[in-house]
């Protein structure tokens, strides 16, 4: 490994230790031309409790569904029920043949249901989240 790569690895390790010591989810350091961002991966055990799909979507509640078949994962900032979305945000992704297909909130609102757990196999049209639009 080159010296430069060793430096980067040492930086990342130090940031990861800082993250754990201070019980933080994510840290971002910008200096000169470099940006370091380190985040904790969502742990399946800590993922939100799976809720049953709402039988008939209520007014102003939109379902966000998967359009790919693959393994669903939450984004680095795990979305929870009650989270307020200021704008379009990546909530998770469907991993398919090594490619991450992002699942986005498609606008602002409030998450009212998280319907899949991290690591679930999802198919086409499978509801993933319910978002109440303001």
């Amino acid at each position, binding site marked *: 490994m080159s010296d430069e790569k060793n430096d980067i690895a040492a930086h990342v390790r130090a940031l990861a230790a800082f993250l754990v010591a201070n019980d933080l989810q994510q840290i971002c350091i910008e200096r000169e031309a470099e940006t370091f961002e380190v985040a904790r991966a969502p742990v399946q055990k800590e993922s939100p409790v799976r809720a049953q799909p709402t039988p008939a979507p209520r007014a102003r509640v939109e379902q966000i569904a998967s359009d*790919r*078949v*693959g*393994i669903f994962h939450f984004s680095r900032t795990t979305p929870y029920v009650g989270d307020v979305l200021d704008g379009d945000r990546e909530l998770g992704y469907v991993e*398919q*043949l090594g490619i991450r297909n992002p699942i986005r909130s498609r606008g602002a609102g409030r998450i009212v249901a998280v319907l899949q757990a991290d690591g679930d*196999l999802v*198919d*086409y*049209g*499978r509801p993933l989240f319910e978002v109440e639009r303001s």
Partner: protein
Amino acid sequence: MFSKILIANRGEIAVRVNRACHGLGAQTVAIYSQADKDAMHVREADEAYCVGPGPVGRSYLDVANIVSTALATKCDAVHPGYGFLAENARFAEICSDHGLVFIGPKPSVIAAMGDKATAKRIMKEAGVATTPGSDILESAQKARDAAKRIGYPVLLKATAGGGGKGMRVVERPEDIDRAFASATAEAEASFKDGRLYMEKLLLQPRHVEVQVLGDEFGTVLHLGERDCSVQKPSHQKLIEEAPAPNLTSKQRHALHEMAVKACKSVGYTNAGTLEFLVAGDHVYFMEMNTRIQVEHPVTEMVYGVDLVKEQIRIAAGERAAYVQRDLQARGHAIECRINAENSQNNFAPEAGTVSHVEFPDGPGMRVDSHMYAGALVPPYYDSLLAKIVVHGETRDEAIARMELALRETTIEGVHTTIAQCAEILATREFREGRYDITFLPRLMAGAASR
């Protein structure tokens, strides 16, 4: 043997393959489109996953979603059925790249035999008779030159073609430029490949095909021939039978020998079908289908072999379970395709909901179908509802049994081809087994002898 197989298809063939997998102790994973969510193949598989909306391009042809389903469900093999991705060499290759066994021949063989002009060249080199024709025609001028050499009438065909798309009959030199342009455009639109080649148009030939099975150890077996000459003007088959009636033993032997020779020359493995045109005393290779055929049950009925199970066993690396001398045809089998079609509307495919279904049952009768009362016939897919298959000790007995089977078949909610099949069976030409590929178009035009 495989522990779990993904069935990359729908309809009756998905149900048929599912049965074979379960018979071999393998679990199954079905895929379906949103239009097929209540389909029989979804209910009968051990697991089922939606791969897209109704249109085939976004569901049954979505390679990424299908392969991802197979991997995520820990399948070890994929059975493609027929149609859709069954003869897509790239799909077979992608399966293999991801550690999935594609139940079919090697991708290189699919590619070579799927390209009709290449397949004809390979067969010619292997000493198999092919219809007089040309290689790929790069221009209308080349088409004019080829037609002059071969002699009119000629047939322009799309090398990537099937189902009559990109095909034109040209009877006179003055029509060839226009036919070349329109066939190229149609082939380009249908297959994203506008390349054409030319064949001598044989007058009143019969369509006879030979079933083969090859294993990884170099064994190639034939399971006799089927006559598939009852075809609509669109070249869609409607009734098939095995063995083919009124072939001389010399012709029959020549067909079987050519099929085995051709398969050995390309190292063919798994199930396949070589299609021939029989014109007078001549037998010409037409094309090869590197998959299971719709009409495979007639062969199964006369040979007592489960071809789909054999496909799976061979793909799992087992030796063919038979030797040629064990494979003896017994009796006669006929298949009628019951499609959702409206005879009042030029037999156009029909979508709808089947409200009531009754199928025949009894000795020598078999029905391959995915229909049930309440089943939806979506507009996106082929219109096949059921295959009624009968077996008799003689051809006459098989015809009589089929007439009974058709009378006992009821499908309500959509128009079907039941009456049309019964009409064909009643004609003198069919009963005498003296029909060719012009028979059904003539019958539909009211010109065939009844």
